[in-house]
């Protein structure tokens, strides 16, 4: 077995060359790694369907790190879990497609999905304390997918698990520990080791550092970043911590109430946020560099997703809301710098211009009485 994990920092390799297991037969080498189109995942409650994810589209290229951000309940975790159809029993994917190497996973049966889970897409769960089985050794839990998914022998998969733990900085002598015997940071590292077990194409990090204290957070993030570069992983990082995305990701996708508000390269979106929600979110976020007193609070509550409002879902809380906002769904507008915005303030993109269009107010007033800017012509 050629062990690419022990190779030194590789240049970003292509999808096919760095995989030790062959792609699925139907895979289209020309297709993007992951292409999600108009995904709709709804939950059934007694009073109706919750439109938790309601028309989300995005693309993940090979070797790219995409950050998913938004308030809790905006659908970012549901979006990620929909990719491997790991949903609660009352959830249904009611529309759209999830194409991995050009293969649509949405129509796949539960049994067929098992083939894609962990081998193609693995997950680093939030809160490793609960995500690990408390009564089984960490090493054995990491060895499990190697043993049963890759068909390796008991001893080979255990040995591999110990190697993986070594890779994330857990000494071999701790490999036989139970989850509760490890510190929070070590558990999260072990979780990362487990996610790498089957050499997946995509790793999803679901708030992987939320439960940790700041110092440990930094270490775990550094580890993730290093592994991503070394192994050429493609990463989807879910977090409400925008500074994590700023440090780790290439692109960022801001979600609000089950829809994508804004998506684009991290430096573009963070430097020049276009969507009013993105701006509020950046303002509401206590950055390490910023003074905490400048922290902004977004007035109002996210909408009830059983009966979401027509038009833009952020309109009721938006300082720049116009009559059209509550009537018509905002279109996806693309800009030349790679940013995509769903907002009536930007009905037309600037495929030619380098910089965003002028009418964006540089510093939006926080008060609800702020005058709505006129839409660009």
């Amino acid at each position: 077995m050629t062990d690419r994990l022990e190779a030194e920092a590789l240049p970003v390799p292509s999808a096919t060359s760095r995989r030790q297991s062959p792609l699925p037969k139907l895979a289209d080498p020309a297709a993007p790694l992951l292409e999600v189109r108009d995904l709709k995942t709804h939950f059934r409650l007694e009073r109706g369907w919750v439109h938790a994810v309601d028309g989300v589209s995005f693309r993940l290229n090979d070797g790219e790190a995409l950050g998913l951000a938004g308030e809790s309940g905006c659908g970012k975790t549901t979006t990620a879990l929909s990719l491997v159809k790991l949903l609660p029993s009352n959830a249904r994917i009611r529309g759209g497609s999830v194409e991995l190497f050009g293969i649509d996973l949405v129509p796949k049966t539960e049994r067929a999905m098992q083939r894609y889970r962990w081998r193609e897409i693995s997950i680093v769960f939030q809160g490793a304390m609960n995500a690990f089985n408390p009564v089984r050794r960490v090493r054995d839990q990491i060895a499990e997918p190697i043993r049963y998914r890759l068909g390796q022998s008991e001893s080979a998969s255990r040995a591999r698990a110990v190697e993986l733990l070594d890779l994330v900085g857990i000494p071999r002598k701790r490999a036989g520990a139970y989850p509760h015997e490890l510190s929070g940071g070590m558990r999260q590292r072990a979780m990362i080791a487990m996610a790498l077990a089957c050499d997946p194409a995509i790793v999803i990090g679901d708030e992987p550092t939320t439960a940790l204290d700041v110092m440990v957070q930094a270490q775990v993030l550094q580890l993730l970043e290093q592994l991503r570069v070394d192994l050429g992983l493609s990463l989807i990082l879910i977090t409400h911590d925008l500074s994590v995305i700023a440090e780790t990701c290439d692109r960022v996708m801001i979600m609000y109430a089950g829809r994508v508000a804004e998506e684009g390269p991290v430096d573009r979106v963070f430097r020049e946020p276009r969507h009013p929600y993105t701006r509020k979110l950046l303002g509401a976020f206590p950055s390490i560099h910023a003074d905490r007193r400048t922290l902004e609070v977004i007035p109002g509550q996210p909408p009830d997703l059983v009966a979401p409002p027509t038009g833009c879902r952020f309109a009721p809380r938006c300082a720049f809301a116009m009559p059209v906002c509550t009537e018509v769904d905002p279109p996806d507008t693309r800009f030349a710098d790679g940013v995509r915005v769903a907002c009536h303030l930007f009905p037309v993109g600037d495929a030619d211009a380098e910089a965003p269009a002028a009418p964006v107010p540089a510093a939006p007033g926080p008060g609800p009485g702020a005058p709505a800017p006129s839409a660009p012509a």
Partner: protein
Amino acid sequence: MTAPAVPVGAGVVAARPPGGVISVVGRLVRRPNGFIGFAILAIFSFLAAVPDLLVGPLQTAVTATGPRLAPPSEAYPFGTDQLGRSMLNLTVHATRISMVIGLLATVITVGVGAVLGIVSGYVGGRLDAVAMRIADFFLVLPTFVLAIILTGIIREVIGTGSREIFGIRLSLLVIVVVIGITSWSATARIIRAQTLSLRERAFVDRARVIGASGGHIMGRHILPNVMNLIVANAVLTFAGAILTETTLSFIGLGDPFQPSWGQLLEAARSVGAPGLGAWWYFVPAGASVVLVVFAFTLVGAALDSVLNPKLATRR
């Protein structure tokens, strides 16, 4: 139905069952298991309330009218026993005895358990430690064997004879008390746990700060808040009490002059009804026990999901 989609806010003081007794019962019977349970219990409560109106007074060896150990016929729809008594008459009268003993035993069990649980949880300290140690002891003990011995001994001590209290013979009241003595511990444990968490709540602190006495706080603040739990527990205790009474009577601690279902089953066994193929001797009483216990369990489960909506929304 209006189970909230989002768990109720944790800090909210849920002082009363949501919507009062009528609404709780209303929501209970709208659940299929609650409705079936309630319907069965209503029928048996009716039988227990007016047995004389339905089947005449209890038949005895003297007033028996039928042939001996005869299978069901038009005149005797449930057949007859070895003395020629109508099994229908006996079973309906046994309903009253079994239900009343079950009710009294439940009142004692839940009463003792609730008082001990609240006081132990609220006062805490050494009293709590001792009380809960005893409760654990009773939980582990094979209480049924203890109940057998206690029943025997108490009857010897007080010498039962034919005295009656509230129309129930003393020998049966001994069973009531013994069931109470041997089964209070589970209730006490549950109520204590709830009391412990209530004790830390703000409204109890407020009451303490304005100088309310311990008794006042327990009676006015804690009791109303554990009432849901007490009711839910009482429903399940009732089922257990009927099972215990039936079993105690079956092994010979019943009273032949006031037969309960267990007493009828004991008679059936000692006559050898199963060996003689006389199914009608034990099927009516047996089915009654199973139906009533089953109904209580259904109502208990329905009550649980109505009073704890959080459980209902779990996937």
